[in-house]
């Protein structure tokens, strides 16, 4: 009965019931078959004319290029010297609506290490999602090509269904691993569905990301470097309407107090780039978003005494906190769509105390990775005593905040998606 409300998006014409009643096909990690299937997808997407206008689709295709797949394979082998790993069985992916390419990363990494996969995607309208699904269907359903006969093609089912606890229950009962993207609320919802005792969950909770810029370095940077930074920053922040967990929401300005002019210029240029490019982003910037930013920044002024640093700008709203660290309540007010919190840092060592437990990505400019991680070490150590999670998960240059990596939110995905081999460990439905 639950099958009625489920729409199978790929492979087209595949039956949900038939899929879940079939023993999941499992492969050795990075098998010839799975690499062939994924790299074929990469090639097709790369050459798809519709994908060309979407930077993130091209980035997706590029990430799964054959050479990178072999690199991932080699890393996996190196990491697991002397021990054999195998797929867990059936992976149930609950993927987010805010980043429309995320479900592919989740799916393909799982497929590459040999799992069978059921992916629930958002029913939100998305041109990019449609293109991806279409390319997948070409791949999985076209009987004239070799990939549809690839046994790995039998290990993918992409569905959507309206919020429905019964289907969540059913799929959770079948799964050997659940990948729960979509933040705290989704995790809470899915925790209500019971799973097999052996099933493990990878939970991707609500996260918060920041950028760190050395204002003195920026001041001395050439025109080209400056413009490139602005363009990278805009992409990191706006590609998904500042809704991606790794998009920066706070900007820490090292040496910021002495360099007000360059900070103002930075925001002016960000605003200028947005003026040209805002229509190319997922949601654009709508009236409701603009009103929302007025409300939130005024609330922040009432509750936290922030000052507005973007009074004459059209698309950017920037509020400065004099009293850092920014509280969790203030962070909770963040509404995305071009609202930035700004904090001046006197010294790099102050950074650690400014970060919260759910910090995900710190993107940077004008510093070295080593300097930052060193400055954060103290935080990591003191934090480890209280809680294993927390602290910054990723430190990447500005421009790479949205770049996917196999380690995400502290999970090494190829490792987590597999388990140590032992005989008879094959999952049953």
């Amino acid at each position: 009965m639950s099958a009625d409300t489920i729409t199978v998006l790929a492979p087209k014409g595949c039956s949900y019931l038939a899929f879940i009643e079939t023993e999941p096909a499992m492969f050795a990690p990075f098998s010839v078959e799975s690499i062939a299937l994924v790299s074929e997808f990469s090639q097709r997407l790369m050459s798809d004319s519709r994908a060309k206008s979407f930077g993130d689709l091209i980035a997706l295709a590029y990430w799964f290029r054959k050479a990178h797949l072999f690199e991932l394979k080699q890393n996996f082998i190196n990491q697991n010297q002397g021990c054999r790993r195998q797929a867990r069985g059936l992976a149930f992916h609950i993927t987010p609506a805010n980043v429309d390419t995320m479900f592919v990363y989740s799916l393909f990494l799982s497929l590459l290490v040999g799992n069978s996969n059921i992916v629930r995607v958002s029913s939100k309208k998305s041109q990019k999602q449609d293109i991806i699904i279409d390319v997948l269907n070409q791949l999985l359903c076209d009987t004239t090509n070799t990939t549809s006969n690839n046994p790995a093609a039998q290990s993918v089912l992409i569905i959507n269904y309206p919020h429905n606890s019964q289907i969540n229950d059913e799929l959770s009962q079948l799964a050997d691993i659940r990948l729960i993207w979509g933040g705290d609320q989704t995790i809470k919802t899915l925790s209500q569905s019971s799973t097999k005792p052996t099933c493990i969950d990878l939970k991707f909770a609500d996260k918060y990301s920041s950028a760190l810029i050395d204002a003195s370095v920026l001041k001395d940077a050439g025109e080209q470097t400056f413009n490139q930074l602005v363009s990278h920053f805009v992409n990191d922040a706006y590609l998904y309407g500042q809704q991606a967990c790794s998009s920066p929401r706070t900007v820490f300005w090292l040496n910021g107090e002495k360099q007000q002019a360059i900070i103002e210029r930075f925001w002016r240029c960000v605003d200028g780039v947005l003026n040209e490019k805002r229509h190319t982003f997922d949601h654009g910037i709508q009236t409701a978003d603009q009103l929302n930013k007025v409300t939130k920044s005024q609330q922040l002024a009432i509750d936290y005494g922030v000052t507005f640093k973007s009074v004459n700008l059209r698309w950017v709203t920037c509020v400065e906190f004099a009293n850092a660290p920014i509280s969790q309540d203030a962070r909770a007010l963040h509404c995305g769509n071009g609202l930035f919190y700004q904090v001046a840092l006197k010294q790099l060592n102050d950074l650690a105390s400014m970060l919260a437990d759910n910090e995900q990505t710190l993107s940077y400019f004008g510093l070295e990775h080593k300097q930052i991680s060193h400055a954060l070490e103290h935080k990591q150590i003191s934090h480890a005593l209280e809680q294993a999670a927390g602290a910054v998960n990723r430190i990447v240059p500005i421009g790479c905040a949205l770049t996917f990596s196999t380690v995400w939110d502290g999970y090494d995905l190829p490792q987590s998606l597999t388990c140590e081999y032992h005989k008879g460990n094959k999952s049953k439905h």
Partner: protein
Amino acid sequence: MNDITNILDNLLSQDTPYGLNAAQKALMFKPGLKALTRLHFDNCIGYHNIFAANGLDINDFTAQQTPALSVQLFKHNELVSVSKEQVIKTLTSSGTTSQQVAKILLDAPTSRYQTKVLVHILQSFLGKKRLPMLIIDHPNVIKDRQSFSARGAGIVGLSTFGRDHTYALDNNMAIDFAAIKGFIEKYPNQPILLFGFTFMVWQHFIEALNQSGETLDLAQAILLHSGGWKKLQRQALSNSDFKAALEQTTGITGVHNFYGMAEQVGSVLVECEQGYLHCSNFSDIHIQSSEDLSDAPPGQAGVVVIESLLPMSYPGHRLLTEDTATLIGEDDCQCGRLGKYILVHNRVARTQARGCSDVG
């Protein structure tokens, strides 16, 4: 505060609330607005913070620089410029888009001027005498004080303009023909006042009359209605459709929609004979671009910033609303009223909930 009450008293002493041209109005409105900004800056810490956040100097700013507070703020923050003991009345607005309710706190002077200004404005349309009043709602709407709705509050507020209050609907929301016909017979050939919320008048009066096939002779009546068109937007009902259907079923030609919000006492824009909503001497309107909220050129639809000289107990004198409207003109409406006149369109569409947390 004397500055403001002096201005209000002066405006109330005018023959009509629509008698000042732009230059005359600015002489009183701008100092009034600035005096309110100063008042709230000194007495409301939240407002003080917002003013300061904009980098403004309280000793050197213009009326136009007065920050426009988001109407949404009143749902999250209690903003008040008088002590708790001075608050005599709390207005609430039931947001249709949010469960959270705005709380507006009035002291005695603000509440007194709210009544005076409403009387001053509506009397210019209804005359000074209280008219027999037919309310297009059911009697229970004001009886259940526990769940006193915004609708009930609106009806109670308007009731002071009428007498012999009669309800046109029964408790099942069906037309009470006996009551209406009795009322019409009691007051033949004389003006009567009809009041109701726009969607109630449409759904439970005009449409119900259409379906019943009956017509009523209310040609002498004046209909005041408010509450917005949001609930009727799905039916793509325009103001002129509304008026045509009303005339056909009841003969009513005197129809005045009005626009206002709980968050701002004193700004009641009433529809004139030409179908435009007029600012009175007590309120003003600015239209901001729907794109970036900068000043929109005349004639372009945008988001409404609304100003009122009345809010003395809370900082609601200049608000950024979520409504869109077009400024049609100023001082030159064919109805003869001076001041700005506008057409209100609709609410700004909310973007769907986004963020990590929606797998929708």
